[in-house]
């Protein structure tokens, strides 16, 4: 029994994954998967952001850049050689991770502010670069056709006629992003509870003191940046298959930056639960809002809520709950 309790988090993860799978098998409206994908993707993005931002205190404004790198790596791979989706995700993650390492190497030796500015500028530069890269569609964008009868290791994954595991690509992608999100949360929690997480917290609290207490600050920051960036790249790599049409404006949208920031800050940055709650809450609200109010008003409210939380509730929803107990 104690074994079960010790691994209750892992068991929880498996249960959630099974739940996600079951949802795809019963007759749920396809719109649910379409909207659900976006929400779960945000869980992954918010969790990834928080590894560096919440644990380490180094804020990344360029989430859109890392996502976009993932997306366009996937697109480039599709254009080049019709690579299937799992390698797209892995290579997209790799490219974004390398990008994080590159930016981090130049800017993490300095105050956190410079890293933040560099990431923001980076996202814009990448968008400009892709705008001019015709191989992946340039500014006009590109259409991605889902594979006609995709297989994975010989097993039919998606078949409209019901022979595959999933009935359509959206269900499959929903399941895939759920698995990826659960994986991200597992990584975040493992980091949080381990030596790396404690070191990152020390860096966030007082970097100079941490360094003098033996914490290799630059190395830890680079690790966090690379892991965070890779997860974002993976989340971006799965995007083209979901959207079926991608242009730089969508892939590098600044909305990702504000959401990646707002969701953990509103949920609570000091623990893995915070970004999950923030993403589920804000993601769902936004999905509802998009159909009922204008997208500008939605963003305005998001910005205002972010500012309010930053000012009044620095420990987020989770922090507020914990204080009450």
């Amino acid at each position, binding site marked *: 029994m104690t074994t079960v309790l010790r691994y209750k988090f892992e068991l929880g993860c498996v249960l959630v994954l099974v739940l996600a799978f079951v949802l795809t098998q019963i007759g749920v409206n396809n719109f649910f998967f379409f909207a659900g994908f976006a929400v779960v993707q945000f869980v992954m993005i918010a969790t990834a952001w928080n590894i560096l931002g919440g644990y380490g205190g180094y804020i990344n404004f360029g989430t859109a850049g890392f996502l976009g790198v993932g997306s366009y790596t996937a697109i480039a791979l599709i254009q080049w050689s019709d690579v299937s989706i799992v390698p797209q995700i892995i290579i997209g993650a790799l490219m974004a991770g390398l990008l994080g390492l590159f930016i981090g190497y*130049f*800017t993490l*030796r300095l105050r956190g502010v*410079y890293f933040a500015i560099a990431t*923001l500028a980076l996202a814009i530069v990448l968008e400009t670069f892709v705008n001019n890269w015709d191989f992946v569609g340039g500014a006009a964008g590109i259409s991605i056709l889902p594979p006609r009868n995709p297989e994975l290791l010989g097993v039919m994954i998606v078949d409209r006629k019901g022979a595959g595991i999933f009935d359509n690509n959206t269900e499959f992608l929903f399941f895939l992003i759920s698995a990826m999100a659960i994986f991200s949360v597992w990584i975040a929690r493992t980091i949080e509870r381990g030596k790396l997480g404690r070191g990152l917290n020390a860096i966030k609290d007082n970097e100079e003191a941490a360094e003098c207490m033996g914490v290799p600050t630059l190395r830890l920051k680079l690790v966090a940046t690379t892991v965070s960036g890779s997860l974002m790249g993976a989340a971006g790599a799965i995007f083209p298959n979901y959207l079926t049409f991608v242009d730089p404006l969508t892939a590098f949208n600044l909305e990702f930056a504000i959401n990646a920031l707002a969701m953990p800050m509103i949920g609570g940055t000091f623990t893995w639960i915070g970004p999950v709650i923030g993403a589920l809450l804000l993601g769902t609200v936004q999905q509802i809002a998009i159909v009922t109010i204008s997208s500008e008003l939605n963003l*305005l409210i998001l910005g205002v809520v972010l500012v309010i939380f930053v000012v009044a509730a620095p420990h987020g929803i989770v922090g507020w709950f914990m204080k009450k107990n």
Partner: protein
Amino acid sequence: MIILELFINALISGILLGGFFVALAIGLSICFGLLDTVNIAHPTFVVAGAFCAFFLNSTFGIDPILAGVIMTPFFFALGWLIYSAYYQFFERTSAQALRGLAFFFGLLFITEVVLIMVSGVDHRLVNAAYIGKSFRGAVAGIEFSVPYRLLSAFVVAGIMTLGLQAFLDRSFFGRATRAVHQDMMALSLMGVDPVTVKRIAFGIGLGTCGIAGALMIIVIPIEPAVGRVFIGNVFAIVVLGGLGSISGTLIAAMILGIAESLVSTFFGPSWAPAVSFSILLGVLAFRPSGLLGVGDTR
């Protein structure tokens, strides 16, 4: 010969562009350099200033530069308010730097969305006598043209910069602003409230957005999201010039203007944002204190 002509014209445009960049960056040089507040929303406020100039110009026919001057007190007041909020919630309690940054990012976002809601996503332009025409000349067989809109931006930016430099060097509040950067305690012991000085300084920093915005809409067509394109520019200039140095900002703006103009002419305008970003990264990597910086990057 063609190359030389292209080069000369690119150089001229670059210098004039540099002047415009100074107007853009100088407010941030004050806020970030002297007050250590990372107002990443600064370019977006400039865009807001540009929209104000557009509104005054299209509705009342007011000359855009005059409109910029009219808007300056409003932006000063806005700066005063914003800094007061920032100080109240963040600096006084020495909250994490992360939260201050998030605050300004939220402001950036809110401002941009409000602009979209008010004015839509279309590009806007202004009309004035000097926009659209150029001064053409030829020296030693090389033809060059100096667009009046760039020239006027350059002149106004120059006046603004010299004025601010004089203010910081000679006036009491100007010197107090420099002092507050170096030693707050000493300043308050001399009977000056450091917070008021900072409020004024931030107000001035944001006040530049009125005129800078007017210059922006003179130089290029604007739309609400265009501020983001300039974030890289503006921070590259402030970092390259060195935090807290107006003359550093001037030199850096010139360098960037010329670099962007040359790259634009010879490699295509789509590469221009890469220039500012590369300069930013390069400076941070090799000389974080910038050319003439007095600030501290670590």
